[in-house]
């Protein structure tokens, strides 16, 4: 039975990709939204925000928006999964002679491919507005690899959420409440050193910051070098980000699979 796992997963992933193509409005968080953020911050707020240590704000910004969009990615998975649970698609799949794990795996693969889309979009938009990479081939490879790896980890948070929350509308509600503190109390748009007291501490330990800072570092952009005396996550952003990615997968993946099985049991 497991010999069909890969091919079944791919059939279900292809279905997911067709869904995305045919529902461009549901893709907006992965396409228009990050591009809008780039333009908004680069041209509207950008002039008022100074990067410590100097350098172009537009270049500082890109790492942040990459990180924000990747974290947002969790909700795409959660939405498509809860929609499938509600419209009977999961039942149909489960009445077919396929390993049931391939349903979840198909969703994950489709969403991982989906995660590449905004990364490509933003790279292009960034380049147009004046973002430049000042590092070597291996660092660039590392940066895009890190984005992909973190996207993979984030998918499991999405699966967990999609199995816990009963409707796509409820997923949207959770997204709206959760996403702002997580992606704004971070070094996404401003350096953490500019934040006051508690917020600064939260931002420093927020993995969104470390992911943004890692990308800045790997792209050779401003904000990529931690000031001396920084806390550990700021001083070692790549290691801290990888620890988070592994921890998310180790904790969320089994929980997500368990919760998913419970959600479809009855």
């Amino acid at each position, binding site marked *: 039975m497991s010999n069909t796992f890969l091919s079944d997963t791919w059939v279900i992933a292809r279905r997911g990709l067709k869904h995305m193509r045919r529902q461009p409005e549901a893709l907006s968080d992965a396409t228009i939204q990050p591009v809008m953020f780039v333009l908004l911050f680069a041209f509207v707020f950008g002039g008022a925000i100074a990067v410590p240590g100097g350098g172009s704000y537009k270049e500082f910004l890109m790492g942040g928006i990459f990180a924000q969009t990747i974290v947002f990615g969790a909700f795409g998975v959660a939405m498509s999964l809860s929609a499938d649970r509600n419209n009977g698609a999961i*039942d149909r799949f*489960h009445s077919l002679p396929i390993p049931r794990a391939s349903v979840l795996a198909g969703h994950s693969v489709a969403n991982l491919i989906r995660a590449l889309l905004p990364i490509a979009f933003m790279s292009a938009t960034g380049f147009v507005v004046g973002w430049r990479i000042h590092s070597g081939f291996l660092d660039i490879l590392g940066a895009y690899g890190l984005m992909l790896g973190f996207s993979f980890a984030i998918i499991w948070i999405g699966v967990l959420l999609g199995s816990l929350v009963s409707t796509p509308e409820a997923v949207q509600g959770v997204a709206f409440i959760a996403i702002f503190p997580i992606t704004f109390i971070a070094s996404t748009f401003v350096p953490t050193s500019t934040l006051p007291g508690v917020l600064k501490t939260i931002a420093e330990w927020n993995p969104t910051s470390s992911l943004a800072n890692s990308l800045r570092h790997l792209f050779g952009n401003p904000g990529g070098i931690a000031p001396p005396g920084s806390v550990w996550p700021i001083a070692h952003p790549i290691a801290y980000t990888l620890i988070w990615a592994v921890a998310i997968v180790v904790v969320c993946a089994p929980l997500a699979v368990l919760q998913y099985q419970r959600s479809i049991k009855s």
Partner: protein
Amino acid sequence: MTENAIEAHGLVKRYGDKRALDGVDLDVARGAVCALLGPNGAGKTTAVRVLTTLTAPDAGTATVAGHDIARDPVSVRRSLGLAAQDATVDGLLTGHENLTMIGELHHLGRKVARARADELLEQFSLIDARDKLARDFSGGMRRRLDLAATLVARPEILFLDEPTTGLDPRARNDLWDVLDQLVAQGSTILLTTQYLEEADRLADDIVVVDHGRVIARGDSRALKRQVGGDQLHVVVADRADLDAVAEIVERIARTAPTVDAGARSVSAPAEGGVAAIAELAHALTEAEIRVEDLGLSQPTLDDAFLTLTGAPAPAPAPSDVETQTETVEQTR
């Protein structure tokens, strides 16, 4: 190998305090059409979910196409086609893509799956909608596509959960015709319905379920017989004659008749059949009672349903969306 396509013994499924299935036994012979008939929340959908391995029973055993649902669920799934209650076609895929995907997941291979999809679209008069997204289909088209999807891998046994719910009368008749063809081809079908008319029309064997239990089974004639057979029925011209008629009817039927003053009618079960009606006609003439109508009526399946479940039979209003609540309750 068992003789029967479906065999179930003592199936129990609880949702919290509620027993959706409370010891259900079922056997469906190969090539037979069996209808699970019952009101909303009777446990019909749960029975289908258990037999199609979508949910595990709390107690009891069952085999489908000779495979045990608990020990060999994949073989069970390989031999069945399921059309769930609310036509679960994929709205964002075209008709052809929907069927191809199912074929690929049945491991027919891409090429065979595509050819089979075209074949089924043709068979179900959906060929014009081949490349249209299923979300733009009408209700009847969605049902037909859903039914086509269950047939992709030529399953031995079809499970159809309320196949005509939500369809207008015309689409329902079309779907019945399609089901007739499948029956003629010798498919084994287990369908659920709350429409007596539908069970009567499609099934050889009707299993009446209520509160998670099988409360009666047989063909429609046997079910009607369970309610008490033929009824003597007299309508008088003058209401004043009702008491006299009731007396006469009681003498002949040897049981107290039902008197409906509003309808000016008297009725009672007729053991003697045609002989009883002759005797009654004679007695009424002798008593010089003016009779508007006199006859022997067979109880309808609705009467049977009423008697068996103790609840009024639902009106056969196919556009009724109320029926959706059953799945919602049971799948959450």
